[in-house]
């Protein structure tokens, strides 16, 4: 086997742990999109008293990096409290797997984001988020860090695809340095809408491409 993947990545890819859908999940997160090539869903069963993750499952539409990272993330998260699980980083997951090819970073980072989204979902549903934070430019920017730029394998903020963010009275306008007829334009727009429209005080999201 001469792939640029470690033995452990291939082992988790072939025999992923904790796979499947959890119908009665206490928290769930979905990151990525089929358009960008990778997607991960993470489901949590949480002990309400101890806040310990008692069970975790994932589904993946993705490549070997994506599946293996999601698999190792579920192993790392099981038995941890929500606070502990929040601190599981992509770096830690990668190290556990014996490394990943740099070009595959974006495929694997989704698993970590999926876990964090599931934890956030649990916290929101269980009143653990103290006050609803109003959507500001910074909140939007932080959410956009979860939208991948498929040309670079990094998020659209870090790769400077996002040139301007305006937030006014629940109307969000995002300017992208990308022509509307670009191969990935529609996919990126779809992903942005998914991440921003769900914010509690957002009324409308406009994605503006360069001409």
């Amino acid at each position: 086997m001469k792939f640029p993947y470690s033995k452990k990545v291939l082992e988790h890819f072939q025999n992923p742990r904790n796979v499947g859908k959890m119908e009665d999940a206490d928290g769930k997160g979905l990151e990525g999109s089929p358009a960008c090539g990778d997607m991960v869903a993470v489901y949590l069963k949480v002990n309400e008293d101890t806040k310990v993750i008692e069970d975790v499952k994932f589904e993946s539409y993705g490549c070997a990096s994506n599946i293996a990272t999601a698999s190792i993330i579920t192993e790392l998260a099981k038995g941890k409290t929500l606070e502990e699980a929040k601190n599981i980083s992509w770096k830690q997951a990668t190290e556990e797997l014996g490394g990943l090819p740099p070009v595959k970073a974006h495929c694997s980072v989704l698993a970590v984001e999926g876990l964090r989204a599931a934890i956030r979902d649990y916290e929101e549903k269980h009143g653990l988020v103290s006050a609803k934070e109003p959507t500001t430019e910074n909140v939007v920017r932080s959410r956009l860090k979860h939208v991948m730029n498929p040309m670079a394998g990094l998020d659209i903020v870090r790769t400077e695809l996002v040139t301007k963010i305006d937030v006014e009275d629940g109307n969000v306008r995002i300017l992208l340095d990308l022509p509307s007829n670009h191969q990935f334009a529609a996919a990126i727009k779809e992903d942005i809408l998914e991440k921003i429209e769900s914010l509690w005080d957002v009324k409308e999201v406009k994605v503006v491409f360069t001409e």
Partner: protein
Amino acid sequence: MLDKMIYLDNAASTRLDEKVLEAMKPYYFDIYAVATSEFGYSMGIDAKEALQESRQTIASSIGASAEEIVFTSGDTESSNMAIKGVAAALLNKKDKHIIVSKLEDFPVLNTAKAFEKNGYKVDYISVDSEGILDLEELKNAITENTALVSIQHANQEIGTLQDIEAIANICKEKGVLLHSDATHSYTRVPIDVSKVPVDLLTMSAHTIHGPRGVGALYIREGTPINKWMDGGFQESNRRAGLENIPGAVGFAKAVELVTPEENEFLKSLRDHIIKRAEEEIPDVTLNGSRSQRVPHNANITFHYVEGESMTLHLDMRGFAVSTGSACFSRSLEASHVILGIGGDHERAHGSLRFTFGRYNTKEDVDAIIDAVGEIVEQLRAISPLYEKK
């Protein structure tokens, strides 16, 4: 795991035929001189004869004359030579313009893009959902400033065949030169340049069990084309660099070994895999034209699963195939061909390209489709996109 690898990526490259190697050997060990003129030494004259005979074989295979064939290092060089050579010869055109299709392979597509950067106007002609060129769009795109049209004969990924005769006739009527990249159809689908008015044709040995590193460009007599590499005066002063005589001999032998019966056999493998995939695996889409396709290509999307995962699982079971998934390539860009025929990213990501060659059998096809069925089921079981029917 199988005892041997079952290789179904013959569009990428093929295994060399032993008979080709045998034909080439004397030109490495016995007649290894350069091709000298008729008053040179005898070994050089023998080498030149072999080169000329090979040239004649390639020429005959497309109804050309030997003088119209230039040996190159392969299809990339042939297509670069055709486009860059013609463009250079027609540099005095005031508004430089070339036309290619959206589905071209990288030697043509990236040459066109390079030209665009250098001030040429390039039109990229659309195709329909089967990958067939829009002839009206082509007609309308040609202007008096068009230096060259370059449209492939068969597509490298989805195997769709263009109506090259109709395209050539349009170009002829409009008085514009036509280059066609025939890398993926050459000898598999006949093309006769004495009847089809194509001006330049790219061919390669590596797709037909010939050696790598050798190809040819057909240049119709009288076509304006400049030499694009400086050096010696080989190939009638059209292509500099010592001729690859063993390569040319091997190429000619490879051409001789392709038979209509073999092409029929490849077609039967193609149809068998399409039939089994469509009958036995739910949610599949055949990419490319069902009727107008090369005999050795089947490109199928298995929806809700990702291509790199499929190819990796297949490799672990001993099968080699290719996919249009972005994750398969370092560029992280999904197949421009599947997107070009109106497919979305999900369709591109879940596509597998099976391309057959001389050494494949019906048993190979049965084995891989069994494996694909199992793998797709396994991956769909963990896919958030797939709801069990």
